[in-house]
């Protein structure tokens, strides 16, 4: 029993980490720019495809391919931000919801046209395959890697936001946008950079997670609900909230599957409703 708890916690955390790396950008987009971006999964999908095509077609080694996923998706998102998103800042939530649904549809069709029907193929390097033996249980190496790597990224991100001037500028802009401009912060540029970072992280998460959440053209729609739950339950404009929420969902989902598979995803949704009724702004939200 105890050892199965360890396994459930382990897999739940690995899953939660991926969810967090993908969703944290969404929390920032919605918290900072007030944009309800249902199309966030598109960036994660793009990351997965970049990883797989770079590795498969150009023989790029895994670490470099992961990095490319981050960089290319971040750059691509800037183009989208300038061309489309920026026109809808401050528009109503309905408008943003519909726009992002449109974007999902277009990108799903495009992904299918370019990459076909099969899931992005990810061949892990040998050093990330196999098992690690600890405490009498086996832990898949790749998931251990995911946990530590994501943790590294997350700490880096938190350090960036909490301890650097750039982070202070972002927080200032979230607090009082107009005042931030009054002290000389170019919020437009800042938003663009932050949007790119958030999207890049989604790309990174999509690439890293491609082995767990297979990346295929229907990806942005399939996982949308989970990304949204992470952000809504965690709370907008917060970094820690979605982290807790992602871990909660990862562990709860894994635990339900392990012990009560007949309930399916029922409990996760019920918990979401419960939490949101208890704290409508999410666990750590600063705004609704």
């Amino acid at each position, binding site marked *: 029993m105890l050892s199965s708890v360890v396994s459930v916690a382990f897999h739940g955390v690995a899953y939660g980490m991926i969810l967090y790396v993908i969703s944290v950008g969404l929390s920032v987009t919605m918290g900072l720019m007030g944009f309800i971006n249902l199309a966030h999964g598109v960036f994660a999908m793009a990351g997965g495809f970049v990883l797989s095509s770079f590795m498969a077609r150009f023989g790029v080694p895994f670490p470099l391919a992961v990095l490319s996923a981050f960089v290319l998706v971040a750059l691509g998102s800037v183009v989208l931000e300038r061309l489309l998103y920026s026109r809808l800042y401050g528009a109503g939530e309905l408008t943003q919801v519909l726009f992002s649904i449109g974007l999902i549809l277009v990108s799903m069709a495009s992904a299918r046209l370019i990459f076909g029907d099969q899931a992005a193929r990810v061949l892990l390097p040998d050093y990330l395959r196999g098992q690690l033996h600890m405490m009498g249980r086996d832990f898949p190496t790749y998931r251990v890697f995911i946990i530590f790597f994501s943790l590294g990224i997350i700490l880096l991100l938190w350090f960036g936001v909490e301890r650097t001037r750039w982070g202070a500028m972002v927080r200032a802009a979230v607090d009082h946008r107009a005042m931030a401009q009054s002290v000389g912060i170019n919020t437009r540029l800042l938003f663009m950079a932050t949007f790119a970072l958030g999207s890049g992280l989604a790309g990174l998460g999509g690439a890293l997670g491609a082995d767990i959440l297979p990346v295929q053209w229907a990806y942005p729609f399939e996982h949308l609900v989970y990304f949204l739950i992470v952000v809504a339950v965690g709370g907008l404009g917060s970094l820690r909230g979605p982290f807790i929420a992602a871990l909660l969902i990862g562990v709860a989902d894994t635990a339900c599957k392990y012990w009560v598979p007949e309930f399916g995803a029922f409990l996760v949704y019920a918990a979401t409703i419960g939490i*949101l009724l208890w704290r409508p702004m999410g666990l750590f939200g600063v705004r*609704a």
Partner: protein
Amino acid sequence: MSGYSADTRIRWTEWLPWVAAGLFFFLMPEYLSLGARILIFILFALSLDLILGYAGIVTLGHSAFFGLGAYTAGILSARLGVNDAFLQLAAAAGMSALLGMLTGAVILRTRALTLLMLTLAITAILLEIANKWSTMTGGADGLSGVQVSPLLGLFKFDLFGRTAFLYCLIVLFAAWWVVRRIIYSPYGAMLTGIRDNAARMHAIGAPVYWRLVMIYTVSATMAGVAGALLTQVNQFVGLNVLGLEPSGDILVMLILGGVGRLYGAFVGPVVYIVVQDTLAKQYPEYWYFGIGVLLIFVVLFARGGILGIFDKLRDKWLSHSRPKSSARASAR
């Protein structure tokens, strides 16, 4: 326009949809099953317009009521042997109303993303139930064996969909009449007041929350009826009536037509379904590309939807033909 300043007489243009439906029935008899499908989605969109367009509630979970209605009618027939069309409709309406009232009372205290997520989670839960409770619902295989007795003992649901089409048309007409009454009523005016400025509505002493729960219930009822119609026409219910996808689809249809203008709910589904049908024949693998582009276009350039474009064109034409009035407007 609704409210106290409105002329509530039915304008000749308002008969156009019904004339069109009649012509459709006689001129395109081979398309009647597509027609019935469109009529059902018009009803569904109309129910959404009531809360989205008139009361300003954005939801990603309207399929909860549509699906509950669909399954209620289906289970009634396939499991309990109740094949009377009107009994099925009434039961679906009742169940959806109940769900609408209960969930409405819980979620309408929240706003924005939270509200969006709650509506989404509720329909997701229903989807899970429908999936898991397969002895009742047939699970992922769907519920087959649904039957509908001939209407009034006379009209059998035929292969050409004649009965189905007319039946849907009559139900839609009744619903349209009800919705039209509501939006031109003091209650409807009050709803537009809430959408426009909820704070002021509180200040003039309106119990805003209860009023919203009420209209949410009405809307849920109509969505449930639409779902039941779908079951009756198809003699089948599948899981696709629940969850995010149908909620998103109906939202898209309504927006395409135009929100909060009653007839947007008529135009949107027609355009969406016809475009989808046509594109899907041409490019079955990529048809949603076209829908996506259309959606982005509407959001960026035509916020009022298709009817909004018509309005703008009409205004433009009017201001050209009457230069004086526009001069006055700009002078102000």
